[in-house]
């Protein structure tokens, strides 16, 4: 097989993040610039050298604004990835493509998000008349992302015999890791099984502790070629593999109109991801799995091949997903307990694991899987050091 043109050819050399908080004073644009400036400082690269930008299609701060605020160089490459949180890892993949093809020399990828106030939830702005995909669900009160996820997980339980005990394993693993990270929203607040099961219903079978936090924050990474990375102050973290996935039955969150909604988009991204990868599920040391809602983590353990379809529930038992277990996940606390940036904190945390600087460091970790969603059109990367 022809080798992948991007495999190990590009490295993340800088990471930057703002405080994770509620009702932060700074605007989303200011937070964006804080994160990017911090990432460039971390990389030891002058803003004038930046000629590539990569972000989400839903990002509100555009390329011109970033350039004007930070005094970047002339931009020769700028890309956006679609599908909300599903596009997170794709921003890194697209940045790499710009670098290996010579369309850019220094590329910044980022996500900024101010959603800590209830009125900032996108579903609060549901229109009185809806079209396209939404017309088949919204008129019946299937409005919030959690509603689709609850419907997905009820069926998942029916198909595979999973229980909410398994979701609790996910929530507790993320919380245990957040408790080690002083910057996390849930640092200092432990979560035990009784507390999980006392959580109020949001959409039965999902309760409060199955849902991610809503926070204000911004996070950014700086990427250059592997050659250039050797001259940067930090240990280079290489992009080893990149995949995206859309199934024929894709819906935005659950593909519940499709023939087999349990065949999620993660299966497609995983196949692409492992096609050129030296790492497979069996030798991935640590994973940052998209956790907007706990059921997605169970599903991804299957989609990305850590266990067989239907076996994620039992795989999640006995501390497998916590530090010291076979596959520590979301070692920065994840979206459930650290903060929610459409999974960009997973990318930052993955880089820290590969640098050896995580607050929940997996000893000698050499590979980290990072995913962006599963039910939505999705993307994923493998980082190595």
């Amino acid at each position, binding site marked *: 097989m022809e080798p992948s043109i991007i495999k190990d050819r590009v490295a993340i050399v800088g990471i930057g993040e703002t405080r994770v908080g509620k009702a932060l004073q700074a605007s989303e644009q200011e937070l964006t610039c804080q994160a990017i400036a911090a990432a460039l400082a971390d990389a030891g690269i002058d803003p004038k050298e930046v000629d590539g930008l990569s972000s989400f299609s839903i990002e509100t701060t555009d390329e011109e604004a970033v350039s004007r605020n930070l005094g970047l160089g002339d931009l020769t490459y700028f890309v956006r990835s679609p599908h909300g949180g599903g596009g997170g890892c794709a921003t890194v993949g697209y940045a790499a493509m710009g670098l290996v093809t010579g369309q850019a020399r220094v590329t910044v990828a980022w996500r900024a998000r101010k959603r800590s106030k209830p009125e900032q939830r996108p579903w609060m702005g549901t*229109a009185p008349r809806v079209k396209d995909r939404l017309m088949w669900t919204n008129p*019946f009160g*299937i409005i919030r992302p959690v509603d689709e996820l609850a419907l997905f997980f009820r069926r998942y339980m029916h198909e595979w015999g999973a229980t909410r005990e398994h979701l609790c394993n996910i929530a507790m693993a993320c919380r245990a890791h957040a408790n080690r990270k002083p910057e996390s929203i849930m640092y200092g607040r432990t979560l035990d099984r009784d507390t999980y099961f006392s959580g109020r219903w949001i959409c039965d079978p999902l309760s409060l502790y199955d849902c991610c936090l809503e926070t204000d924050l911004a996070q950014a990474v700086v990427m250059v070629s592997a050659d250039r990375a050797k001259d940067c102050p930090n240990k280079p973290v290489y992009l080893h593999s990149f995949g995206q996935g859309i199934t024929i039955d894709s819906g935005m969150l659950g593909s519940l109109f499709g023939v087999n909604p349990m065949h999620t988009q993660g299966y497609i991204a995983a196949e692409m991801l492992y096609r050129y990868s030296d790492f497979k599920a069996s030798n991935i040391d640590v994973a940052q799995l998209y956790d907007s809602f706990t059921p997605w983590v169970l599903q991804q353990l299957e989609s990305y091949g850590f266990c067989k379809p239907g076996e994620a529930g039992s795989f999640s038992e006995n501390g497998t997903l916590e530090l010291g277990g076979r596959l520590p996940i979301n070692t920065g606390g994840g979206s459930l307990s650290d903060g929610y940036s459409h999974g960009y904190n997973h990318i930052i945390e993955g880089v820290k694991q590969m640098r050896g600087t995580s607050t929940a460091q997996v000893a000698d970790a050499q590979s980290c899987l990072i995913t962006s969603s599963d039910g939505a059109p999705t993307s994923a990367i493998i980082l190595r050091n």
Partner: protein
Amino acid sequence: MAEVLPKTDDEDTEGFWKAAKQGRLVVQKCTSCGEARFPPHPYCGKCRKTGHEWIDCSGYGRVWTYAFVYKPMLPAFEAYTPFPIVYVELEDHPPLRLAGNLVATPDADINSVDQDRVKIGLRVKVVFRDRAEDVALPYWMPVE
């Protein structure tokens, strides 16, 4: 009460809403290969041809999955929480499914079916309710 209703004048989907207004539950059937499809779209993904007719369904189906919505919700729905939401698989066209609500009688509220009664496999029948001049929405009534 600010309701959430479908836009009914889209070329690809208006056939469904016109039939609904007449109390008929319809799905598309490809005129080339006969494949039934829902939600509606202009090309048949199986034979890659355009051209379809709207065919009447029996209106019977079974609950394929369900959940119970709690607060916080949009004002239009919040008074009814907790209420069930369902996907119903059509009895005569599996695996086609519609999303919807359960109602105990044709005119009852969307929280009128007891939670204990809601199960995967529950048999239901469609009823239509006028919600605007151009909109009738399908609801699902349990049948024993």
